[in-house]
């Protein structure tokens, strides 16, 4: 069963079909807000009336160490508590993990891949990997830079949520912004919200280009 989610974003209005169950895996390093990202995504889904579950991998936590967090979104009660083995979306908050840790375990060609980077997939050495992927399921966004710009701190998680909303439409940007404003307050809330909106715009633009190219092919 699928759910039609209206995406009334900033630049475009389009309807995307989101599966009844959707699993996201976030990868990053301690201190980058990976766990918060998963939690905020779950709150955004909750705001839209869906069930959601967010939890981190349980390993030694220290700043700089690889961290993964999971978010499951579903129309029905979520019972399992196993780590997400086959993610529908992969969010990579730190590109330096790409060739250090097996980020892509269980990730197939139908999934969405969002990477925090200023480089291209080819530059990152992922050209071969993503060759079999649908181009409208892939995106990069300079989330750290956007965060620095809008928030004053290089914490890319909020921006990446905006990007994920644009890429996968699993939640709307509005829900992401509401979740951010519930969790944070004052300048931090607005900075994060702005970063999320900016990233949403970047990915939306990128996707429109991809669609335009595809149409003209």
């Amino acid at each position, binding site marked *: 069963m699928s759910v039609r989610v209206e995406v009334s974003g900033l630049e475009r209005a389009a309807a995307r079909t989101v599966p009844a169950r959707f699993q996201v895996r976030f990868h990053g390093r301690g201190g980058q807000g990976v766990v918060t990202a998963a939690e905020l995504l779950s709150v955004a889904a909750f705001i839209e009336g869906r069930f*959601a579950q967010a939890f981190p991998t349980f390993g030694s936590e220290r700043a700089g160490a690889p961290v993964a967090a999971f978010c499951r979104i579903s129309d029905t009660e979520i*019972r399992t508590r196993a780590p997400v083995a086959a993610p529908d979306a992969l969010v990579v908050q730190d590109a330096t993990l790409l060739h250090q840790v097996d980020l892509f375990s269980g990730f197939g060609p139908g999934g969405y891949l969002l990477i925090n980077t200023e480089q291209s997939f080819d530059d990152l050495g992922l050209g071969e990997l993503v060759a079999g992927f649908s181009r409208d399921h892939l995106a990069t966004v300079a989330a750290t830079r956007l965060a620095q710009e809008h928030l004053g701190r290089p914490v890319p998680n909020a921006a990446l949520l905006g990007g994920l909303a644009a890429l996968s439409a699993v939640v709307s940007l509005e829900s992401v912004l509401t979740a951010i404003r519930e969790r944070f307050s004052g300048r931090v809330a607005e900075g994060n919200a702005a970063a999320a909106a900016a990233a949403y715009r970047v990915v939306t633009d990128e996707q429109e280009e991809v669609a335009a190219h595809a149409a003209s092919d």
Partner: protein
Amino acid sequence: MLRQIEGSKAVAAAVAACRPQVVCAYPITPQTHIVEAIGAMAKSGELTGCRFINVESEFAAMSVAIGASATGARAYTATASQGLLFMIEAVYNAAGLGLPVVMTLANRAIGAPINIWNDHSDAMAVRDSGWVQLFAESNQEATDLHVQAFRLAEELSLPVMVCMDGYVLTHCTERVDVPTQQQVDAFLPPYQPRQALDPADPVTIGAMVGPEAFTEVRYLAHAKQLQALARIRDVADEFGEAFGRRSGGLLRTYRAEDAEVVVVALGSILGTIKDAVDELRDRGARVGVVGITSFRPFPLDAVHEAIGVAPRVVVVERAFSIGFGGVLSTDVALAIADAKARVSTVVAGLGGRAVSEASLIAVVEDAIAGRLEALRFLDLDQRAVERELARMAGDRRSGPSAENLLRDTSTVASGSV
């Protein structure tokens, strides 16, 4: 009120709504978010009529709770693992004195080797203490069980611990219907102690009891726990009527009526098990689940009835008795001793190791095919173990085993799934 909330915080909100009068706690992973949240509520004035005390050890925490409860105040604390062991003398003391303290046990493995992640070894260490032990399957149930726990404890004059899987539940953000103050007030009346320290009516509490009466005192504790079997069911039913959802009780079954294999377990692993069972059912296997909520008192009759005539029972447990085998399995086997079922113990998830649907499906399929031995350690790295055994056999000074194994397995923490 429906909220997307971290398990610890939902529990804190529920406990606060129960109007505790004395909350005392010592921090230990993974319980910290619970007591921090309650502490903040007490400090800000959101939680009134409550003395929140930062104590110097877990032993002090349970001791403060004992003093408070004996004075007629509703007392609460929380701990895990090493902390539970540090307070174990006081844990037995509270039960022996018949004090209705409620405690959250954020299940965590006991060292050495030190491990901060989830398993049930801590709860198992105090299963004979006389405390009621209730295991939560989800954060909704963990939240609800605390409300039921105060009621149960105070009615029975027995301490109750609510076991919730550390990290897996405490640090998981999910949808919880957090009971409101009005709902809890309607369900949980003010504490009426059976005994209380009061200058107006002095009593002596905690005297020595010699051989002439000790057995009788202990028997009464046992009788109380047997009474608890009925009350646990009743309180859960009353909760269901008041709050409109099922939480607590002795046990719950899932697709077990016609099952050939019944999987039995405690706690949050039941969620993963149910997904695995659905998959197995889709593949044509007749598998069901018995999820036990009340571990102590152990519902022998209810377990017997729930398992029925199923020929194979697979007990998945997050603890084991070293040198022997399962802990929960032993209790389950006793419950169905007169049946012809074959019981296998599957030890899984020790020290926080993740348990996947795939592993569970494989182990149940082994059970169906008659390939499951009496005791199996799920996802055991057999080669690493054999290497260390060989090392120990070959060299007297083989070094600390834990460190050797870590070097052998050398996983990158938090990077692999």
